[in-house]
């Protein structure tokens, strides 16, 4: 069974590129998308109920409706074992620190590019 990845990111280009690079790297993942914080939380809940609890969540910080920190808190409340990685431009801010505080395990800075991003994913899933 494929691993499940939930990407919460408001920019469609970013969503698309992340998927393309995952695919290109040959990672066999079942990818779900959400475009704001609120939707992300709902999607996580829905997947959990379907028995498809995401193995990893990629979370942006600056999101409409509900920001990344709030969304992380909600997810963690739902599932204390949830694994969330921040992938954000706000990597060196209090905001990012608050994300960690809310339960995120790691922050992947935007400047590492998609290659760097995929490397992190590979590392995560291989270890798993």
């Amino acid at each position, binding site marked *: 069974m494929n691993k499940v990845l939930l990407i919460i990111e408001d920019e469609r280009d*970013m969503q698309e590129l992340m998927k393309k690079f995952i695919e290109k790297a040959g990672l066999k993942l079942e990818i779900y998308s959400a475009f704001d914080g609120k939707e992300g939380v709902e999607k996580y809940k829905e997947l959990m109920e379907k028995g498809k609890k995401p193995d990893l969540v990629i979370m942006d910080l600056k999101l409409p409706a509900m920001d990344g920190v709030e969304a992380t808190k909600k997810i963690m409340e739902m599932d204390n074992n949830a694994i969330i990685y921040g992938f954000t*431009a706000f990597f*060196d801010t209090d905001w990012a620190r608050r994300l960690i505080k809310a339960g995120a395990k790691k922050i992947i800075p*935007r*400047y590492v590019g998609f290659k760097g991003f995929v490397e992190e994913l590979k590392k995560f899933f291989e270890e798993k």
Partner: protein
Amino acid sequence: MLNILFALYPDKWEMYKLFFEESPIALTVVEEDGTISYANKKFAELTGYKLHEIIGEHFTKFVAEQDRERMNEYHIKRVRGEEAPQEYEYKCLRKDGKIRVVRIKVIKLPENRTLSCKIDVTEKKEVEELFKRVVESTILAVFIYQDDHFVYVNPAVEKLTGYCKEELLKMKFWELVHEKYKEKVKERGRKRQKGEEIEPSIYEIPYYTKDGKLKWALCSLTNIMYKGKPAALATAMDITDKKVAEEEIRESRRKFEFLYQNSPSLNIIIGFDGRIIDINDSFLKLTGYKKEEVIGKKVLSFVADYHKEKVMKQLEQDFKGIKTPSIEVDIKGKKQMHTILFGEGQVIVYEKGEPIGVLLSGIDVTTHKKMEKALKESEERFREVADLLPTVICEFNLDGKILYVNKAGFDLFGYTVEDLKAGINALDLIHPEDRKKAEERIKEIIQGKKLGPIEYRMFKKDGSQLNILVNSSPIYKDGKVVGIRSVLTNITELKRTEKALKRSEEKYRNLFEKMKDALYISTIDGKFIDVNQAMVELLGYDSKEEIYKLDITKDFYCNPGDREKIIKEISKKGYVKDYEIEIKRKDGKKLIVLETCHERRDENGNVIGFEGIIRDITEKKEMERALKESEEKYRMLVEMSQEGICVDDENENITFVNEAFAKLLGYKKEELLGKNIFELVHEDDRKKLEEEVKKRRKGEASKYEIRFIAKDGRIKTFIVSAIPLYKNGKFVGSLSVNLDITERKIAEEKLAESQALYKAITESSPSGIFILQGGEFKFVNSKFSNSIGYTLEELKKMNYLELIHREDRYKVNEAIKKVMKKEETILPEFRYVTKDGRVRWAVGTGVVIEYKGRPALLGTITDITEIKEMHEKERKFIEDTSHYFFNPICVAKGYIELIRERINGEEKNMLEKANQALTRLEKIVKNIVTRGEIHE
């Protein structure tokens, strides 16, 4: 960070630069590894290092060893993103090794950098502690009163008054003062409370202690502002002992003056220069002079010319303190001559411990002398009468040579005056057969036997014989028989002769009665058989008859053995003269008298009794004793006095100091004598002393404060009370009483310094300082007042929470509760609202103190609004930069990456270049966001 600001606000670069570099707060930026990458001038000043010695060093180099581990731990926690205290105190280690206490506030910057703001609070801490210690531990009572009440008292006030602090703080400041001074103290105190300057500021006040004792205090007052209102600050010390001693001196002096002036004796004090220093009223009354006519004049100018030499000689002895005999001197009175008998010896008179002359005490014997003169005249008259008598009276010496014979004698025996001058022996005139008998009788008379008349046959010059009845008696001179007086009666004329004798006896009797000295005749077995009226009065009996009943041994002499002693003395030489002895009056009172007495013998020469004169010297003796006691008392007082007493002469050379004065200045007494007082006075105070001496020369007493230099060079501050001294109306120097107030002075100065410093620090503090009690402001400094826009008066009417931003009230209230429980000393960041409605950010500190007997919060607040705003702008900038740059770059690079694999050749190269350009841009943005620097 500065670079970021510069990038953002390039036009404000100078302002920020200035803000950091010139900030009165010491600022440093510490890197993740703990090295200092930025420090301002204030930090360099705080640590004593140059800026280039600081940059690149680990921050713990500037931390005292005991705080190093703790501070480093905080730093590591901050780097790890863990919680660490943001504001606390630590000890800063300076380059010179000195430690300063510093209040620090740490603000986190990006990339695990920290900005530290530091304020040096060492002096504030020390001064607070010093001020408290000085005031609380000084033995000087210190208190403040305001609105008529004590508002501050130190422990010494409790000791001084016997009331405890709580009791005092409920009292009005004048309540303890003696009734006589109460209104005055109240009136002056109220003026002082209004801020009026009142002189003098030092005075002595009597007051009551809690247990009702009346005491004296020396108070010093000054106007101060206390809690924003005028008040009086006073210091006081107990001077009761000094006041009591002063009172005793006055009493002793008053007693002496009373005795001296009111004694019936004639008292005169003669200076060693022979001039009269003082004379009592009795003396003036007798002589008719006014005091000013006598004082300062040579005593000899009042002495009769014929007595001047003997007085001069006796005074020389008196001045040397040699015991001199009593002396009779004729003194020229205003109207007549007075004969005064001065007693034996003399009393040396001291003034301020120094001998100034002698006190002579005498009694007026003019009347007595007149009587003596009268007696002499009476005798002359007697001789004249004797010459007129038909009875022969004749006196001859022990050899029988006739010395005197009356006219009747010449007439009866036919001799002339010339014959008498040529020498006639009485025995030659006696019939040879009667001569032997006559010679024997003379011997018996010489031995003191009283013999009856005898009849002799005698010859006239012409050889004719006469029958003469001869009655002889001895002639005494100075108690010795020097001759014989005989009355020769022609027997036919016996009756006439007897009458003449009787008259003579009456004359003597009259004299005996009128004498002012007490005279007596007594029997051998101790009974008086005759006394004169003076004796009756002296002994206080009602009549002579009462005296005749007395047993002399038991009832007359105080000591029963005295009579026997006197009789023994008399038996040696036939008499005693001026024998000092105590006798009893009828009322039992003792009298000290001088007794002069000789034996009485019968015609057979047996001692049958005594005749004597009693002179009362009780009063004189008593006066001498009282005078001596009084004098002794002064000397004791002067020597025992704890205050330095000093006497100097008209040239300010010291002539006397007491032990205390010498001790205060660390000298021996002898070292100070002869020294000029100006040498001992502080150079800067000599002019002041000159002015004070000028005042004294004008006759003014004065009190002033002056600094002396002790032998070891220390400065001693004395309160000097000085009076001018006069001799014969001329200024001869000063007497001063010196109270050492050095300790008090030093304490006062320290207190003033400490207060001034304390106030200066409080008022110049860059932080707002306040005292909060029960939610109300009790004190705020000007910084606090200025920051918040309200005056203390306005703040007093408000609850402090009204100043706090609504959202932060709970937080601040909780923090203050913790401070009051002593669990916390830091107030967290909070917002406050100024009077004009601006919202500002601040941090604060708080400690619990005792204020007016109740716990209060002493707090500080530091406005951090500017730092906070800057921080916020910086955060926004970084977030915006991240968002607007990284996302598009990331997307662009992602697509290029995907396309690059699908094309080849020139196009691929071109795309690669575009990718590289984006990577460069990404790097630049990263540097801006993470380091605040614009470069690749």
